[in-house]
């Protein structure tokens, strides 16, 4: 299992579009992936749960992956975070 802290830097935070991108990406791995914010732990493969996390800009998220492809999962997800979820701002 790998854990890594990531910061949300895109302007709108984990809104619907960013959430769906993250969820889609998470679903492409076989590992279990969780997002942890404060005391909330949600399944990254569920859009409803990701939306409910209500993570806005500058929130720090602890991403947790557990499974055979956990390494790739963490690094791909981190890239998504760094690239502003592909939104350019």
């Amino acid at each position, binding site marked *: 299992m790998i854990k890594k802290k990531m910061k949300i830097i895109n302007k709108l935070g984990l809104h*619907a579009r960013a959430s769906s991108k993250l969820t889609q990406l998470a679903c492409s791995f076989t590992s279990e992936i969780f997002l942890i914010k404060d005391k909330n732990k949600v399944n990254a493969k569920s859009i409803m749960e990701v939306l409910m996390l209500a993570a806005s800009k500058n929130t720090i998220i602890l991403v947790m992956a557990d499974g055979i492809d956990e390494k790739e999962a963490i690094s791909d997800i981190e890239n998504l975070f760094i690239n502003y979820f592909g939104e350019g701002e």
Partner: protein
Amino acid sequence: MSSFNIHGVSVSNGIAIGKAHLISNALLEVIHYQLDKNEVPSEIKRLSRAMNEVKKDLLKIKKQLKKDSSDEFSAFIDTHLMILTDKNFSEKPKKIISKDTCNAEWALKKHMDFFVRKFEQIEDEYIKERKNDVIQVVERILKVLLGHPSQSSQINKGNSAILVAHDISPADALQFKKHQYAAFLTDMGGSTSHTAILARSLNIPSIVALQNARGLIKNNEQIIVDGNQGIVIINPSEEILKEYQVRQNLWGIEQKKLSKIKNIQSKTLNNEKIELLANIEVPDDMQSVKDNGATGIGLFRTEFLFMNRKELPNEEEQFKIYKTVAKSMKDKTVVIRTLDSGADKLTSADTTISANPALGLRAIRLCLSEPQLFNIQLRAILRASKFGKIKILIPMLSSLSELRQTKLLIERAKKSLHNQKILYNKNIKIGGMIEVPAVAINAELFAQELDFLSIGTNDLIQYTLAIDRTDDRVSHLYNPLHPAILKLINITIKAGKKYNKEVSICGEMAGDSKLTKLLLGMGLRHFSMHPSRILSVKKQVLNSNTQKLLPWSTKILKIKESETIETLIHKMNQ
């Protein structure tokens, strides 16, 4: 089951006995019903099928969008698809169905409410708004679920179902017209709410402002609605039930008695002819206009033609409707009020909801700012004027310049028809609504430039007393007998008399038979009201002598407190 009563504001008289039919708040079509245990599996299947159908629809839309390469939209569709296929979203309602043995729609709605509540707690405004995505997905599924007509008719238990809702919006009102409910109960609303107007138009009892009726009444419970006293009795005992069956019969007999005066001419004891006109919303209302012996249409609210649709009605469509109404009234007056809608009445998405719609861009203000929309309506009315005795009524005037601008646009519409050699009544009468206090105060100025005046008391009261009639926390302050209101009405009637222009009242006050004698005494000769009110007002007219009423109303106009006014009106009516 224990019996109990709840009290509200009665807005439509009569007595109804029937089974409660609960309707949920946000998605008004959703109703609750209990299933047998053995029906649960098929209900879950029904929900799954509906979800699948929505999924197919969304995929289809997505495919089409790809062609148009609109990335933004396709992202939304993606989100909706993901919500739909998310187990967190799709599995719980199925569990609710089997746990509560309730219908799929209700389970889905319950599940959605749970999410919406959670979203409401989110501080980030942008993410909070994402609840709308969930709502939209739910709505899609509900539409598929409700698309089967057998589902809704199954619930409609003949004509003894009593609707219990949070509130009824104008758009819902049109839908409910088709169902046969025995009574309406709502948590919200006041005597001028849409629920009230709808109930009176259907001639069924209605009680509003019940606060928490939906929380207290269960689906299918037996209830008595006493619209004469504003009481709802839930699970009545046998004795009470019998008592009310008797009362219901007596009420029916009373109504029949009234119907006997239908064909009697509306004249006072001292032989003054009084016009009792009808307010209508759609051409279908014409039946009840005739059933109640109205002497014309005093107010045809055209905004209902504009509701519940995506595109605005074109000239031809409007023309046909106005013509139908004008022709069926033959030589009797038909007053057509131009579009009087604000944000609360138009259902189209392009209207921005202002914080205070009653004071916003609406009625004539809206029409003057959208001259093209207005021109279509004016042309349609003018063309129809050839087929009957049509008059134009302008709503919500607040200044003379607005009136002059409107008259200019009417002249222009006439000219364009003339150039096209289309026939219309060149001398069509133009009237104005007196509902903004500023206009009532200056009624004389308006009387000089108009052919007739029509007092819209509902809005006049709302504007004069600064009361939002949709806010039930202040609705008790809504008072037609406030001395200032009577004063404004009096100014308007006097102004009409001075310049020899007809004055009518087309608000709720005209249909309140307790006020008929007072208004007659004040000199009002034209009353326009809901058709179902005409006979009880006529009964008052037939028993009145305007000469004897004059001193009463003169005295009442001098009184400072509305409580004393009420007492005097009571004496006047005896």
